[in-house]
């Protein structure tokens, strides 16, 4: 919970991690990948305020105590959603598995939602594992990292027939939220790996699932925006947008927020700190204080008011995950501005 100027914000951190990325967990022969991955993440932390930077040693192996303090005690978060990423070709025990997350979550009832994941290249065995995880951890969401390496494969698309089989099974098992994270490698390598058109296909074919595109499709915000404006079940996950731009590049943060508010709308944007990349404290404080700057280039973007910030920081994700939010945090049903419908129709007609 965060309070500012008499306004109370219920905070759902819809995209965060508890990873183990130290040398003790690196796969023999793949050390350079494991090291390269965590160093790349660490560089992202450099985009936040200097006083929140960690040394690489802590960054690789932060502890349960670090997480509980940074996220809940100092970071104002009421409920946090674990998003696992396995990367078992590089990290022996996995980078950030469902089991590791859930083990922490079980010690702190009510604080965490344990999402799981699947990889359609894992065949029948993967389907069974998905079922076990959903039943054991009561997962309502999955995180899909489509650029994960798997037995010589460099990635998959949501529109692959093998993935549709998994999406169908996930839906039968009660999964509702599909968090999609794009990465830099996929097959074939001559195509743009960050292309989001596969999400468009899946969102059309699975209208009862919600697709939360993490990092708003960065580095393909424009493709994401065109897609999201046409698909009612596509959401913008703001991890990296707030963490990577709000402090480091405020003018470009304002532009990206303006575009998202225009194309996607404040009802379909969700806050995620991407912890341990960035601590939530400065992100929540800064976002509540943020206003669209007074600038000719930004003058016709939609504005974001207090009600809109409450939705983005927690209420939207609370709806996706059936989190009961006390009445004092809620906003009137009609508050805020949805994305312009006329413009969405313009796009779909083009």
């Amino acid at each position, binding site marked *: 919970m965060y309070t500012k100027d008499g306004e109370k914000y219920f905070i759902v951190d819809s995209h965060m991690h508890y990873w183990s990325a130290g040398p003790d967990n690196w796969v023999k022969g793949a050390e*350079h*990948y494991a090291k*390269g*991955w965590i*160093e*790349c993440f*660490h*560089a*992202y932390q*450099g*985009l936040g305020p200097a006083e929140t930077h960690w040394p690489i040693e802590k960054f690789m192996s932060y502890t349960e105590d670090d997480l509980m303090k940074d996220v809940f005690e100092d970071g104002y978060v009421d409920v946090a959603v674990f998003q696992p990423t396995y990367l078992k070709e590089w990290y022996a025990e996995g980078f950030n598995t469902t089991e590791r997350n859930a083990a922490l979550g079980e010690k702190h009832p009510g604080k965490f939602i344990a999402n799981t994941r699947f990889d359609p290249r894992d065949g029948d065995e993967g389907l069974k594992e998905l079922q076990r995880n959903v039943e054991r951890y009561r997962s309502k969401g999955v995180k899909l990292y489509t650029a994960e390496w798997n037995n010589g494969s*460099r990635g998959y698309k949501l529109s692959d027939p093998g993935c549709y089989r998994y999406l169908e099974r996930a839906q039968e098992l009660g999964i509702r939220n599909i968090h999609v994270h794009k*990465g*830099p*490698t996929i*097959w*074939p*390598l*001559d*195509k*743009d*790996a*960050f292309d989001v058109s596969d999400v468009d296909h899946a969102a059309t074919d699975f209208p009862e699932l919600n697709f939360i595109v993490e990092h708003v499709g*960065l*580095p*393909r*915000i*424009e493709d994401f*925006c*065109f897609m999201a404006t046409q698909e009612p079940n596509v959401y913008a996950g703001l991890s*990296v*947008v707030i963490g*990577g*731009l709000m402090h*480091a*590049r405020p003018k*470009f943060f304002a*532009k*990206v927020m*303006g*575009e998202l508010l*225009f*194309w996607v709308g404040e009802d379909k944007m969700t806050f995620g700190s991407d912890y341990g990349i960035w601590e939530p404290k400065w992100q929540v404080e800064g976002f509540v204080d943020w206003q669209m700057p007074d600038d*000719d*280039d930004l003058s016709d973007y939609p504005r974001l008011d207090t009600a809109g910030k409450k939705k983005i920081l927690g209420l939207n994700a609370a709806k996706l995950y059936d989190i009961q939010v006390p009445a004092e945090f809620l906003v009137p049903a009609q508050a805020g501005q949805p994305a312009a419908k006329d*413009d969405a129709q*313009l*796009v779909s007609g*083009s």
Partner: protein
Amino acid sequence: MSAALSDVAGAALAALATVRDPELDKPVTDLGFVASCAVSGGRATVRLRLPTYFCAPNFAYLMVADAYDAVAGVPGVESAEVILEDHFAADAINEGVAAQAGFVQSFDGEAVAELGDLRAQFLRKAVMAGTDQVCRPLINAGATPEELVVLTLGAVPASPAMSRLKQRRAELGLPAGDDAPLLVDPAAGAPVPAAQVPLHLRKARVTRAGIEANTSICSGLFRARYGGGWTV
């Protein structure tokens, strides 16, 4: 003699300034990607470095191959070597470019086509972003869609953004002369119909915002990795 050598090295560096990051649409020299460029005894050696270890291999390949072509074409350069450093696919890329093997052969089994379509796809994004760069000051000054749709390239005051837009359009084979319309569909080159202008301008604007956001993040990652870097 040393003056002549440094002239060749200077020409090689100038040639590298024509090589762009296809995603960010900026010269690799401005981005800090050229770690070093030296010419000795007619042999040019260029070292390139990127913001992250996992930057997309297709774009990395294009930059290395373009750098090779640019430097190899400089008078006085008899042979060239371009070395991508600190990248997960550096070996495949460096060896592939050195052997002039092409992308498909360099990434055996992992790619099905060369990178011309990918390059054109990102040039079209550059044209859209450039359209916003040219139109935004006009819109801020009060220009309406009805006024913009009848403008030709020659009717817009000269500016660096304008010459960049013309150049990108010419590279794609789109109309780029003074009599060509300012607003064209970047895929087909056809003039944008009046009714579609507001949406076209919105798309141009979000495309520019996307490229700027990427550039911001890449510059921060580059600085974390190597110090220095650039600003946008």
